[in-house]
């Protein structure tokens, strides 16, 4: 009996994971600019989101060093912060950026995927406060940090 139940449970979990990754894919596909930049949502829930953006030639801001342009980094941060706000348990119906500040600590290493993790650390009836960090392969030294305020549509 027992093994059978476990198998069922696993199947249920796998189905849930497939469902979740489907939602994640659809989330990015629904945002033309984010999919044009090649973003992939790899985790979302409870006011947290992780989005990855693989290195691509058209994102380069400095052709000499191959470093990605700050604008592409801020697009990634903006999308990730918005996703974190949307995924907050109080489930806003929609969101728009009010303001976003980005600190660029160091250039992203050429050729490496950029990973951004955003947390919605506070939410009121009408405003979501979010912060985010972006990394390349060196996970100890963030490339950039962002803080932003987002509208909460109910």
């Amino acid at each position, binding site marked *: 009996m027992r093994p059978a139940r476990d198998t069922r449970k696993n199947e249920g979990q796998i189905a849930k994971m497939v469902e979740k990754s489907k939602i994640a894919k659809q989330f990015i596909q629904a945002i033309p600019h*984010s999919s044009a930049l090649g973003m992939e949502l790899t985790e979302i829930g409870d006011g947290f989101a992780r989005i990855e953006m693989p290195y691509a030639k058209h994102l380069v801001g400095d052709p*000499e060093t191959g470093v990605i342009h700050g604008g592409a980094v*801020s697009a990634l941060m903006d999308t990730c912060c918005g996703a974190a706000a949307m995924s907050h348990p109080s489930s806003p119906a929609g969101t728009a950026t009010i303001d976003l500040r980005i600190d660029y600590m160091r250039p992203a290493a050429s050729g490496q995927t950029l990973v951004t993790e955003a947390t919605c650390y506070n939410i009121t009836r009408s405003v979501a406060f979010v912060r985010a960090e972006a990394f390349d392969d060196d996970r100890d030294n963030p490339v950039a940090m962002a803080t932003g305020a987002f509208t909460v549509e109910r």
Partner: protein
Amino acid sequence: MARKRPDPVQVIKQRRDAALSALVHGVPYINFLGIEFDRRGDELTAVLPYDDKLIGNPLLPALHGGAISGFLEVTAVIGLSWSVLWDEIEHGQTDAEEIVSGHLPRLPKTIDFTIDYLRSGLPRDAYARAKVNRSGRRYASVHVEAWQDNRARAFAQATGHFLMPRRDG
């Protein structure tokens, strides 16, 4: 002794436009967004022609906040770099022909950038102008405003701080 006659106006214009174009089109991300610069003397207006790939919310539809911030940051960096180059070209320290032939100057690096989204970006062309509030040897502070149909109704503005490229020699 008579002063050297200045070059004909179209020669000067062509040289300046070619230098600006080389500076702008040397950056892949600027080409990806499709941003162009319109020059009147030393004043630049950045133009972001509408494209479906710039959309962030297809239901409204509205431009993506990231596309808008990318546009503003490009406007700030090019505006700042151009203002420095303009003076150098005028004073003969930099040769515009050098830039045209691919010897591009290093661009300023963004230290931080704060964007204010005033209203949603409509699915049409957008324009932006940068104002260099301070341009020192090492640091610069730049303000940018972007609008669409109505110049007096900005839809986004930003302030950024930049690290200037080292000028050796």
